[in-house]
């Protein structure tokens, strides 16, 4: 920030937070990678070979990826109209209020919200009841405890996240640019394509990355909505850790999850970086 002459020695201020991060985040991460590389046969990639040779583990990894992918894509699509509405259809004064209306449940328990969907989606839940009242037919929805339900729950959460970051990008677009474009004869669609879309993309991509990360690592929604029959990686990890106490295996799964996140998120982060630079240029 402006003039850094203010304090000369940042360490007394920085050290406590840094210590916490080093001791309980950096060190455990290194330890986790180390554990994943050690097996009974010594140091090596044995644990990883075992992981990829076990069908139910690789299936869980694929499930985690698919669930996260689908819910993030849905979230990404939903975020545009929502953010667009709040930024361009609502008076400036009321924008934060509308944003809060979308985000409010975000600040409350994830578990509770996942559970509340059970009440709506289950075979004797509200939707099934409504269908029965309206049509007289009693049908089993068969929606709860499927991967679709997991995707639904996570997409909803991701939408809030994406809307939030996209809102930030859209709201900071200089209105003069849009006015100028319009004066020069640009139609709404052109304004969207040439101004709003490129300026909104960095914020949108940030939301996409964050929601992918949340979705791939979540445990509560896949358990409460997706059920236990087709577990995702997070569920496997927990059962390994709480059930068998096989530390190396748990560490291996965690390392694979972390690697997957990095591999999937890195191109998006890079893309976002390129977009931002091209905007600034």
């Amino acid at each position: 920030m402006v003039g850094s002459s203010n304090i000369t020695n940042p360490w007394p201020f920085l050290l406590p937070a840094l210590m916490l991060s080093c001791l309980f985040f950096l060190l455990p991460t290194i330890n986790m990678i180390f554990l994943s590389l050690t097996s009974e046969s010594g140091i090596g990639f044995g644990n990883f070979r075992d992981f990829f040779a076990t069908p139910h583990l690789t299936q869980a990894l694929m499930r985690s990826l698919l669930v996260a992918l689908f819910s993030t894509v849905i979230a990404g699509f939903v975020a545009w109209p929502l953010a667009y509405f709040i930024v361009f259809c609502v008076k400036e004064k009321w924008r934060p209020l509308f944003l809060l209306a979308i985000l409010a449940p975000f600040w409350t328990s994830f578990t509770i919200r996942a559970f509340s969907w059970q009440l709506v989606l289950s075979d004797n839940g509200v939707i099934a009841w409504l269908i029965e009242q309206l049509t007289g037919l009693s049908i089993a929805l068969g929606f709860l405890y499927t991967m679709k339900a997991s995707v639904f729950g996570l997409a909803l959460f991701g939408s809030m996240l994406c809307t939030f970051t996209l809102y930030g990008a859209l709201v900071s677009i200089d209105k003069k640019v849009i006015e100028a474009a319009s004066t020069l004869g640009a139609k709404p669609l052109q304004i969207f394509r040439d101004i709003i879309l490129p300026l909104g993309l960095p914020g949108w991509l940030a939301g996409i990355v964050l929601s992918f990360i949340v979705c791939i690592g979540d445990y509560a929604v896949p358990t409460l909505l997706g059920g236990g029959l087709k577990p995702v990686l997070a569920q496997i990890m927990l059962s390994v850790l709480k059930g068998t106490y096989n530390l190396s295996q748990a560490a291996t799964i965690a390392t694979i999850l972390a690697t997957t996140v990095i591999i999937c998120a890195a191109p998006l982060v890079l893309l976002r970086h390129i977009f931002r630079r091209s905007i600034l240029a």
Partner: protein
Amino acid sequence: MNNLIVSKSMSVALTAFFCIALFVIYLPILVMIIFSFNSGKYQTLPFREPTFEWYVNLIADRSFIESFFTSIVMASLASLAATSLGFFAAYAFSKAKVPLHTLFLGLILCPLVIPIILIGIGIRLQVVSIGIQPALWLVLIGQTLYVLPLAVINLKNRIDKIPNSIEEAAISLGSSRFTSICLILVPICAPTIFATILLTFTFSFDEFVIAYFLTNFEITLPIRIWTSLVTGFEPKINAVGTAVFIFSLTLGLIAQFILLFKQTETQKN
């Protein structure tokens, strides 16, 4: 001005979409609140007699009340720790030349951009491999770590906007660094600090995964709720859900309100 961007029919469509989104977001919560007043052991429609039975049951259930107080204590400690550590770190990042600035800031903010489950599993593997049993104090550390990035981001945004000249003036007039922080910086940032405490409190109060990984026997409220959800249905869970939802929502909304409105007000003055 807005009609330059959104045509009339588009605006109607967007409004409709927004309303549908609100409906989808709030429908299950409404259902839960309604069910929490519904008598009858099975949570199915139609609605029977209204009752406060589940709330009375809830207050009488010691395991819920105890875990609630555990959660309150944990969340208070975690939010105070994260906000104070975060304040000083934000101050350093904002007002000093920190070597390897990006690296250190990145390290502190990192827990925000990794799956939360990895924080829990990392600490658990670490302590178990050196022979420490999972316990409540580890939950406290894990949750502080988890909410620290939020605190740093909020407070850094605020401190960045305070001109250095204010503090420089105080110091050139003979105030010590410590006094200038306590008497100038903290009061200026007071709304943001308060909002940050509330926000980090809410997040750690509702946090489930880290707590689930890092404790064996002492439980927090989210763990108690979780146990009830996966082991079999208790009708009073709707009442718990409603209570927790309203509690967190109130705190979270106050915090957001301060961050979105109050902060901009003080900046204008």
